[in-house]
């Protein structure tokens, strides 16, 4: 039932909203949550409990419990008490069989005596293999909500934010702290997870009239609006604290990563439930939850109520209930003696019966079991003990104002100290991290004026106006310890942790099993491990554990508190995906030519052209062998190494010698790391005495560049290294007609074999584009690599394709190139080598200088050779050329032992037979020797060691 204004400060009665719950249509208002709108429609059953499928409803109305978890579309586990409604929202209950109202799995509770704490660890594993049977049943019943793996990705993103002072918590202490800090002209961000500032003053009653709280909030809001340097974020949850005050703030579908110089934690406190039999029935809620329903959402929370409390706060709840038209049957005041709080006197004056020194024995349900029908109270005779005398009171609402505990997660994340204090009957912040302040209820300050003053002090300290931080812990007050609101019952069902249906007996039995520490009890019983993460269970769980273990409570710590404070979605963590992709200047030309593109690290490269892969590869290879082909090799790394010491530098990082390399010539480069492992290769082109242009493999360019920068810094040679990989587009035109094509568009250079021989390099204009020409031959044919400015790469490609048209030039892709190079016997680093391959194993001894005193890996390679070879890379062909082809990484096996593996294998279009490279044992590596490869299905395939190159061993083709 809705209450008239001024109740309902957040709802807009002029904006009705229609939504569905469990298939039925309901109406609420803008500003309502699912739970408040349902409550306004007298719907209190929202979900079912995890273990026993007990009916559950509103508990905190603040998102601090897991009793209102619902399914919204494809998203499970939304919290109905904080989930805003909007038109068309379709909400379903979750974790039931049949219907929410008539859950067929409700029977499980009847077997609760067979499901004691820890049963899961003891059952299901004997006899061996029985888990396979139980798993299906357990998985069918376990879990919360429905996960739809076909759910499309939502749009989530992240943003960075910065502040000199971040205030977490927008209650009066936080507001005062922000205002005070802002006076120092610093940048302040105030973060509040509710839709409006004001904290508990938006719903609690701090005076008899119930007016001073809202008035105070309005006054502070006015000051905040006037402050220019305060950014206010509402509906924003700070989910953790990380080093150097890095604070994740979840706002809708965005995670804001806030970096703050100082943090003021003003996160308030969380009201705690009482523990007694059937304390989880819908209709039993925290006093603050009832007040939120009344004051924020304008909802009458029941017809006839009982309030359980420790003095003042509960009397404010009772007065609010009266003002909302709820009959208050009684106040069960757990305190032994009355307080002199004016609200108590006002409640008595308005005719409410007070049962002083009483506790709660049990709650009783309606006949359908789905709602509260009444409570039984009895005088308290000791901690957790009640007299036989009892009072049964009919009611449909029980408000529990039975203590608070500080919302100190952020303090704990920052390695502050939070532990139990007997005097306050709750956890207490005892120490905070550097550059952090605490203010208000989180530090134990409950008096509004004092909390404001404390906020101001924190703001002054955080902004540097006051060198004195807010002292913690607060000086303990002189109140006597209150009896716990925990009343064990001989029939059980006094829930300590609603998330996991854990009762007093479960905690007691955990301790009896030998788990005498709260951290162990947590892992054995799963207490505080559920969706609410102990926010409404940790306090009572610690009390019970310490009590049953015979340990002192004072100073006892709860379980380790880790981020996130409240649940984060994977979407929040991942945000918008940023995956940089590199495209060559000719990328679109490849796409236009119907290329099948493939991923090569961050690059996208053409694999082959056309729809029919096999035919494309055959055509592309044969076009290069017999005519002319063009491939985009822009992905190769390109580094300018310049300066008087350039040759010396290359001598140190590469295995061959470059000091005497002639200008205008290229030389192979092989790089090893200091363990002698091959890491990269390419060519070094000397364009002047102090200018080398070095190419690298596609995947190795960044690593080679980093290695060079590192060692250049160490050696301090007079040399500069510039990475031109992205700045130069490169193509390789190859085939017997390559020269003829080039001669059409490159007249500056004599391209004849005599004037521009194999491994020559030149600077020249190609199609009027300044370029670096390299006569190198990875594919084993006459060819030219042309490296030109990336901005002109597409024009270069077009010019070559136009010039080659009369010859029938074809583009060829990476796959054809891999076949061509294999025919020529060239290895590909990281395909034909691995993380342990040294040059001798790969037959690269010819690339190791014997004269140089040093290069990377020289000593390690020498040491390896002293031990002798353990494997060798060989070329091979198959004994049955038309038989099944092994694949790369298939194993070489001898007498059941693995002696190597295939690194490359193709059926050569040129040679019309299978050819490959493989690692074999050294005594299997002589030409003509056979070895066995374990192919698909374990079939053994006989291979024969063959000489490489397979094609044109005299090199006449590439040197023509």
């Amino acid at each position, binding site marked *: 039932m809705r209450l008239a204004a001024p109740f309902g400060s957040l709802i807009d009665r002029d904006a009705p909203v229609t939504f569905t719950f469990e298939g039925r249509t309901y109406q609420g208002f803008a500003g309502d949550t699912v739970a408040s709108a349902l409550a306004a429609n007298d719907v209190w059953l929202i979900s079912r409990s995890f273990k026993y499928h007990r009916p559950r409803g509103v508990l905190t109305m603040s998102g601090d419990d897991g009793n209102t978890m619902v399914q919204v579309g494809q998203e499970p586990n939304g919290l109905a008490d904080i989930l805003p409604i909007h038109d068309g929202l379709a909400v379903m209950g979750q974790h039931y069989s049949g219907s929410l109202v008539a859950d067929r799995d409700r029977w499980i509770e009847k077997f609760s005596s067979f499901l004691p704490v820890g049963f899961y660890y003891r059952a299901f594993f004997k006899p061996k293999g029985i888990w396979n049977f139980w798993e299906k049943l357990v998985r069918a019943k376990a879990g919360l909500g429905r996960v739809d793996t076909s759910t499309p990705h939502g749009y989530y*993103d*992240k*943003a*960075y*934010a*910065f502040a000199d002072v971040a205030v977490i918590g927008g209650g009066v202490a936080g507001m005062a702290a922000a205002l005070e800090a802002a006076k120092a002209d610093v940048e302040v961000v105030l973060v509040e997870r509710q839709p409006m500032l004001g904290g508990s003053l938006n719903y609690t009653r701090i005076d008899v009239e119930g007016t001073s709280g809202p008035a105070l909030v309005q006054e502070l809001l006015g000051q905040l609006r006037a402050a220019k340097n305060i950014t206010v974020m509402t509906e924003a949850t700070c989910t953790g604290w990380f080093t150097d005050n890095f604070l994740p703030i979840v706002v809708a579908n965005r995670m804001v*990563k806030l*970096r703050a110089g100082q943090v003021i934690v003003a996160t308030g406190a969380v009201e705690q439930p009482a523990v007694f039999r059937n304390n989880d029935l819908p209709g039993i809620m925290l006093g603050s939850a009832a007040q939120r329903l009344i004051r924020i959402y304008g909802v009458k929370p029941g017809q006839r109520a009982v309030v359980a409390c420790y003095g003042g706060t509960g009397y404010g709840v009772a007065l609010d209930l009266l003002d909302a038209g709820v009959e208050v049957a009684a106040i069960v005041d757990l305190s032994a003696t009355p307080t002199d709080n004016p609200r108590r006197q006002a409640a008595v004056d308005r005719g409410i019966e007070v049962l002083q020194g009483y506790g709660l024995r049990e709650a009783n349900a309606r006949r359908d079991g789905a709602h509260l029908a009444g409570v039984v109270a009895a005088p308290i005779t000791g901690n957790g003990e009640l007299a036989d005398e009892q009072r049964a009171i009919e009611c449909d609402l029980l408000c529990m104002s039975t203590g608070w505990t500080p919302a100190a997660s952020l303090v704990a994340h920052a390695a502050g100290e939070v532990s139990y204090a007997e005097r306050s009957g709750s956890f207490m912040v005892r120490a905070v991290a550097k550059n952090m302040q605490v203010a208000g209820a989180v530090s134990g300050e409950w008096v509004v004026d004092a909390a404001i003053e404390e906020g101001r002090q924190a703001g002054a300290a955080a902004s540097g106006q006051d060198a004195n931080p807010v002292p913690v812990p607060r000086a303990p007050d002189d109140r006597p310890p209150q009896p716990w609101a925990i009343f064990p019952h001989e029939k059980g069902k006094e829930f300590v942790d609603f998330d996991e249906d854990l009762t007093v007996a479960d905690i007691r039995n955990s301790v009896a099993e030998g788990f005498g520490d709260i951290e162990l009890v947590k892992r054995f019983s799963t207490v505080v491990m559920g969706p609410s993460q102990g926010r409404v269970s940790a306090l009572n769980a610690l009390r019970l554990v310490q009590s049953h273990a015979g340990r002192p409570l004072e100073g006892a710590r709860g379980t380790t508190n880790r981020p996130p404070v409240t649940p984060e979605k994977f979407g929040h963590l991942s945000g*918008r995906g*940023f*995956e*940089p*992709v*590199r*495209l*060559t*200047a000719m990328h*679109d030309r490849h796409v236009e030519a119907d290329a099948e593109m493939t991923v090569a690290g*961050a*690059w996208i490269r053409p694999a082959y052209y056309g729809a029919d892969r096999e035919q494309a590869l055959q055509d592309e290879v044969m076009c290069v062998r017999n005519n002319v082909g063009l491939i985009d090799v*822009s992905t190769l790394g390109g580094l*300018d190494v*310049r*300066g*008087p010491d350039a040759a010396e530098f290359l001598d140190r990082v590469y295995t061959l010698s470059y000091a005497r390399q002639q200008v205008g010539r290229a030389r192979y480069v092989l790089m090893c790391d200091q363990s002698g492992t091959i890491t990269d290769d390419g060519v070094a082109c000397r364009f002047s005495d*102090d200018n080398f242009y070095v190419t690298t493999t596609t995947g190795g360019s960044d690593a080679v560049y980093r290695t060079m920068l590192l060692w250049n810094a160490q050696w301090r040679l*007079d040399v*500069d290294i*510039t*990475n*031109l*990989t*992205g*700045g*130069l587009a490169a193509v390789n035109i190859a085939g017997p007609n390559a020269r003829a094509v080039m001669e059409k568009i490159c007249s500056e250079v004599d391209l004849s074999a005599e004037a521009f021989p194999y491994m020559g390099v030149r600077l020249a204009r190609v*199609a*009027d*584009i300044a370029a670096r020409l390299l006569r190198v031959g990875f594919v084993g044919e006459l060819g030219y690599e042309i490296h030109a*400015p*990336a*901005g*002109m790469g*597409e*024009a*270069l490609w077009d010019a070559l394709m136009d010039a080659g048209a009369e010859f029938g030039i074809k583009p060829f892709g990476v796959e054809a190139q891999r076949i061509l190079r294999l025919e020529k016997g060239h290895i590909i680093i990281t395909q034909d080598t691995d993380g342990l391959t040294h040059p001798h194993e790969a037959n690269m001894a010819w690339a190791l200088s014997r004269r140089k005193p040093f290069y990377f890996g020289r000593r390690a390679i020498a040491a390896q050779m002293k031990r002798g070879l353990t494997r060798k890379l060989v070329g091979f062909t198959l004994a049955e050329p038309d038989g099944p082809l092994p694949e790369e990484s298939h194993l070489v096996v001898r007498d059941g032992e693995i002696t190597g593996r295939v690194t490359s294998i193709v059926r050569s279009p040129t040679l019309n037979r299978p050819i490959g490279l493989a690692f074999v044992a050294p005594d299997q590596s002589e030409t003509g020797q056979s070895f066995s490869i374990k192919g698909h299905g374990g079939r053994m395939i006989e291979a024969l060691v063959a000489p490489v190159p397979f094609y044109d061993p005299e090199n006449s083709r590439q040197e023509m």
Partner: protein
Amino acid sequence: MAQPTDHKRRSFIYRQLVSAGAEFTSLADAAVASRYRNEGDARKLGIADLSPLPRTGFKGRQALDWMAEQDVAASPHNNLANLQPDGCLVARLADTEALVLSDLEAKSTTVEKLNALEPGVGCYPVPRGDTYFWFVLAGIHAPDCLLKICGVDIRPHKFPNHSIAQTSIARLSTIAIRDDRGSTPAYHLLADGTSAAYFWSAVLDAMAEFDGRPIGLESLIALN
């Protein structure tokens, strides 16, 4: 109207610009997007592709001295840019490296002159016109937009005009130079040209919530 393919030098993303409705003008040795059919509001948030405009760079222990000898003055401090009398912007990236950006109308001949010289030992040219794309993000929402993709505090009151951040933006190593157009915040963004298409779409995505769109060179110039 000029077309990008009229020139050998082309923007890394000219096809995306054409798809967005760009009209081109020839400038220097390439065509630059001068306006769009559905132009964004440059004062609020827009992104312009200046990749075809001249720029260059120099590295080495003598680089800054050599540039000074050519009357090109870098800032005395790293990570600060210095506006030259002819409108060029010289961004000092390190003790040994600087980047030279043409004025937006490409009237200056500084880049061309520098590129025609051979500096000698200790100063090495870097072809920034080909290694880096060059975008400009402008508008009052530019700082907010950048905060979605950049972890450095580049807001105007923390990042003075002509400050430089060499950082990761949308996971791409980027040089960001604040260079306001009149009273409108503007940032030059330069990074690996081969990732230009990726970066362009990533920034447009971040701009969407502010109704940011591509803008032509004319709008950018008009901000002054």
